[in-house]
C-alpha cells in the first residue's frame, strides 16, 4: 500500500508538467486578449519537432526541447497572423489551426518515418541527499530537470506579467486595447509577441510529452491535453475574477 502510494506521488510531477507548462503559456496569450484554442495542435507540433530533432539533429534532449520550442513559436506566427493581423474570429482560427497541425504532424511523421521510433530522452536527476531518504527517496529520484524548471518558469511568468512594464502593457492590451493604443502601446506587436512566447511554452509541453515522458512519437499523442490546459486556465483565472465582478454587481 505504501509502495503504491509512493509510486503514485512520484508519478504526479511528470504527469502534471505538460499541463502546467501549457497552461502558463496560454495565460500569457490570453492575458493579451488572444484565446489560443490552437494549443492542442501546437502541442503536437512541439512533440513531433522534439522527436524530429532527436532523430535527425542530435540525440541531445536539451537541444531537442529548445528546437521544439523554437519550431512551435515559428508555427504560431501563422495563428498570430490570422488572429491579430487579419482579425479572423479566434474560435475559427484556433480550430482550423488544431486541424491543420493534427493533419500536418500526422502526415509529416508518416512520410519522414518518425513514427514509433524510440529516442534516448532526458536522464533522471539524482538529487543526492534527498534520494537517500528511506522509502520517500524514490519520489526525488524519479524527476527530471524540466519538472524542476517549472518553478523558475512559473516565477518568471508571474513576475513578467504582474511586475514588469512589458507585462503591464500586455495586460493593458488584453483588457482595453483602445486605451492601450491611445497610450502609445503597439497592440499588434504585443499580441503577436504574447502568442509567440506563450506558444513556445506550449511547444515545450508537447516536447516534454514526446521526448521526456514517452520517448516516442505517436500521431495525435497530445490526446486532449491542450484542451484541458485551456480549461485549466479558465478554472485558474477567469472564474474567480468573474465571480468577484458578479458579486460586486449584485451588492451595488
Amino acid at each position, binding site marked *: 500500500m505504501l509502495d503504491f502510494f509512493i509510486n503514485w506521488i512520484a508519478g504526479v510531477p511528470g504527469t502534471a508538467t505538460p499541463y502546467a507548462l501549457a497552461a502558463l503559456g496560454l495565460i500569457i496569450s490570453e492575458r493579451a486578449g488572444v484565446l489560443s484554442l490552437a494549443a492542442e495542435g501546437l502541442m503536437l507540433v512541439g512533440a513531433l519537432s522534439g522527436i524530429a530533432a532527436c532523430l535527425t539533429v542530435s540525440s541531445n534532449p536539451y537541444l531537442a526541447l529548445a528546437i521544439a520550442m523554437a519550431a512551435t513559436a515559428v508555427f504560431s506566427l501563422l495563428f498570430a497572423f490570422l488572429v491579430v493581423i487579419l482579425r479572423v474570429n479566434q474560435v*475559427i482560427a484556433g480550430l482550423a489551426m488544431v486541424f491543420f497541425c493534427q493533419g500536418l504532424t500526422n502526415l509529416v511523421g508518416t512520410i519522414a518515418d518518425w513514427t514509433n521510433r524510440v529516442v534516448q530522452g532526458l536522464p533522471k536527476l539524482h538529487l543526492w541527499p534527498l534520494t537517500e531518504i528511506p522509502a520517500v527517496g524514490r519520489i526525488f529520484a524519479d524527476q527530471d530537470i524540466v519538472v524542476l524548471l517549472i518553478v523558475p518558469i512559473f516565477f518568471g511568468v508571474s513576475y513578467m506579467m504582474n511586475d514588469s512594464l512589458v507585462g503591464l502593457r500586455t495586460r493593458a492590451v488584453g483588457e482595453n486595447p483602445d486605451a492601450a493604443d491611445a497610450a502609445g502601446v503597439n497592440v499588434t506587436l504585443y499580441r503577436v509577441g504574447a502568442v509567440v512566447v506563450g506558444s513556445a511554452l506550449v511547444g515545450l509541453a508537447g516536447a516534454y510529452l514526446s521526448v521526456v515522458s514517452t520517448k516516442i512519437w505517436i500521431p495525435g499523442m497530445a490526446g486532449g491535453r491542450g484542451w484541458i490546459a485551456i480549461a485549466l486556465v479558465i478554472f485558474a483565472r477567469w472564474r474567480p475574477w468573474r465571480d468577484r465582478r458578479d458579486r460586486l454587481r449584485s451588492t451595488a
Partner: protein
Amino acid sequence: MLDVDAKTETAIFAGGAKPAPPRPFRIGRLNLEIRQQLPAWQQALILGSAILIGLLLSGVVLVIAGVSARDLFNEFIVNTLFDGQNLRAVLFQASPLILVGIGAAAALRVRFWNLGIEGQMIWGGICATVLSLYHVGPDATRLPLMLVVAALAGMAWVLIAIFFKMRFGVNEIISTLLMNYIAMYFLLQLVYGPWKDPADGFPHSPAFAPYERLPDLMSGFNSALLLAAILTAVVWWLVHVSRAGFYMNFLYANDRMALAMGAPTRAITLIAVLLSGALSGVAGFAVTAGQEGRLTQSFFEGYGFSGILIAFLGRSDPLAAAIVAILVAMLFITGQSLQVFYQIPFAMVQLIQALIVICVAASEFIVRHRIHWVR
C-alpha cells in the same frame, strides 16, 4: 459574417489613422478602412479564389507527399464525380456531414459554439444501439424509434452544457469540448467491455439486423441522404421562414437589444442549441445505422470539427452548409482512396479542410476592409 472583436478592430485601426511621424525615407504606409458592404459578385469572386488557393496549397502538399499531379486530378475530379458508384458513395458519406453541418449552423445562429458534436454523435449512436441490442419494440418500428432516441440522446448531452452556460456562465467552448472525452471513454468502455462482439471479439458491438439499417432507395441512393435532405429543409424553414428564425437573427445581431425588446432570448437560444444537439445525435445514428451497421469505437472521428468548419464555410446557412458538406464528403472519399492507393494518412483530409478554412477566413479580411497605400 462572424463577429469581429470590436475592440481590436478600432484599436489597430486607430493605429493606421494617426498622423505618421516625419521620417527621412518615407515609403508610405497601409491604411485600412472598414467597408460597409461589398457587391455580391465581388464577395463570390474573393470566396472562390480563396477556396482555389486552399485547394492549390493542398495539391502542392499532396505532390510533395508523393502523389503525381495527374493522378491527383483523376482521383479527385474524374473518379469521384463521373463514376456512378463513387458519386453514390460521396452522397452516402455526405449525409452525416450535412447533419452535423446544419446542426453546428443552427447553434452558431445564436452565437453558441457547439464543439460537442462528437460527444452528441456518440450518445446518439450508443442509444440507437441499445434499442438494437435489447430488441426494444416491434421490428417494424425499430428504425424510426432508433432515430428518435438518438435525437433525444444528442439533445440531452448538449442540454448539460447549455444549462451550465445559462445558469453559471460556463464557457460552452470548453464544456462541450471536454464532454466529448467523457462520451468517448464511455463508448470505449462499452465496446471493449460488455458490448464486445461475441462473434469475432473485436471491439465493436454486434452487427445490426438488416431492418435496423438505413435501407437503400431506388438506384442505390441511401435513405440517409433523404433524411438529411428533409432535415435540411426543416432547419431552413426554421431559420428563414419561422418566427423563431427571425428572433435568432435578432439575437445574433444584438442579444441585449433583443432581451430589452422582449424577445424570448432564453427560449430561442435553447431551441437552437437543442436542435443542434438533436441533429448531431441523428448524425451519430446515421453513421452507426448507415455506413457502419454497428457501434464502432471511432465512428465519430473527424465529424465534430468538420461540422463546425462546414457551418463556417456555409456562413451558418443550412442550405449552403448542405452544399459545402457534399464537397467535404468528396474530400473524404478521395482521402480514403488516397489512403488505400498511396498510403497517405487520412489526416490529409483534415489538413486540406484546415487549409481551405484558413484561406477563406483570411480572405474575409479583404471583404471587410478596404486597403489603401498612402504616400
